[in-house]
């Protein structure tokens, strides 16, 4: 998708591009939980030969890629209830052990999608508080408080163009002050005391153009690229 406007031209990252961008930053040896949607795709983009161990809430370490249609094992699903595979060295365990890994700060990283992220790191990703709808939280609140790092991956704005990086979340919180980094379709941003620090933007996009699409306060990355 090519965006044209009064300021210039750039291409937002699509879902695959976003997943690939996140995968670049995951170092060898990390234990990582991936949420449903784009975060799940991150596993497909870890460079060959780099060992990263993926965790699933329902008791799996060492998640592998989706199986071929004729190789499906009906006893092996991920937290999104999709069929998966197990890599060599993988293991199974029960739910209390699985959430000991999550809540006991044993996971190096969790990558989740979000409706909204506030500049203090507040996360809203479980409920849009629609009247009459049954609330459903799954493992989101445990992952948000338990992983050593929480990265969010999402579009920079909603489909109708409203900002998702806010001064204050409008939807019910998943957890306060838990997000450390956000990968959007337009930029990579770190949560710092002054707001979101811009680490990287898609080529052709200016800081002012990014700020125009962001309600939260942005701050320029440092000379070293903000990493």
């Amino acid at each position: 998708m090519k965006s044209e406007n009064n300021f210039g031209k750039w291409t937002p990252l699509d879902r695959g591009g976003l997943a690939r961008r996140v995968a670049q930053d995951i170092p060898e040896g990390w234990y990582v939980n991936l949420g449903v949607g784009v975060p799940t795709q991150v596993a497909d983009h870890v460079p060959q030969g780099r060992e990263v161990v993926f965790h699933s809430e329902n008791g799996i370490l060492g998640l592998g890629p989706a199986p071929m249609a004729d190789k499906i094992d009906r006893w092996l699903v991920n937290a999104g209830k999709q069929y998966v595979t197990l890599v060599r060295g993988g293991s199974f365990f029960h739910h209390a052990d699985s959430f000991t890994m999550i809540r006991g700060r044993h996971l190096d990283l969790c990558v989740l999608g979000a409706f909204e992220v506030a500049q203090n790191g507040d996360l809203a990703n479980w409920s849009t508080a629609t009247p009459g709808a049954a609330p459903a939280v799954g493992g989101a609140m445990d992952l948000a408080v338990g992983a050593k790092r929480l990265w969010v991956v999402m579009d920079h704005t909603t489909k109708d163009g409203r900002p998702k990086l806010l001064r204050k979340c409008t939807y019910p919180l998943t957890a306060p002050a838990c997000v450390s980094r956000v990968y959007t379709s337009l930029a990579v941003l770190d949560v710092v005391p002054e707001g979101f620090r811009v680490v990287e933007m898609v080529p052709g996009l200016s800081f002012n153009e990014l700020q125009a699409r962001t309600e939260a306060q942005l701050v320029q990355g440092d000379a070293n690229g903000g990493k």
Partner: protein
Amino acid sequence: MIDKFVHSVADALEGIKDGATILVGGFGAVGQANHLIDGLIDRGLRDLTVVANNAGYGQIGLARLLQLRRVRKIICSFPRIAGSTSFEDLYRAGEIELEVVPQGTLAERLRAAGAGIPAFFTATAAGTDLAKGKETREINGRSYVLENALYGDVALVEAWRADRWGNLVYRESGRNFNPVMATAAALTIVQTQHLAELGEIDPETIVTPGIFVNRVVHIPYGDPML
């Protein structure tokens, strides 16, 4: 001779009463004791409180128990029935009570019940709507929520193999909540795909030791249904 095997689902469920709290293992379509749940239906039980991660799958087992309005209250983390809106319909009609619990808090409340721990503090849900009305405490500068142990009258467990002492192993992601729930109920009932002779299961690999198990029924049905 200790022999926890019973001959039928009806025998396995003997004594369960209306209004019971039933812990149901399973995650998605995997590892759920559907034949035992069907047995609850056949027994005519109603007014049940069900503790499970999801609200069932498709039109079978737990989903059917809910659709037949046998459940007064469900305690779960993700109350959806994949491929069906029947839970949402019941909820909107005010025909079922719902307690939403974060998945890790659900697992830990069950673990606590099994371990004789009446309540515990957790950071999960602190500062959110799900902590409303609950006691909170600052410990070392961080906010925590007090959560109570979650006991069952009955646990319905699906195992892969079982011996007559009730020693169990599970299959892959079919393990999920089953071993935790097995510890947390007054009466733990197992349906198993396969039988093992006593001593045949490697003691190093037994996941649920038989002390947590009361009754076992052999139901070799094959792979989980879609």
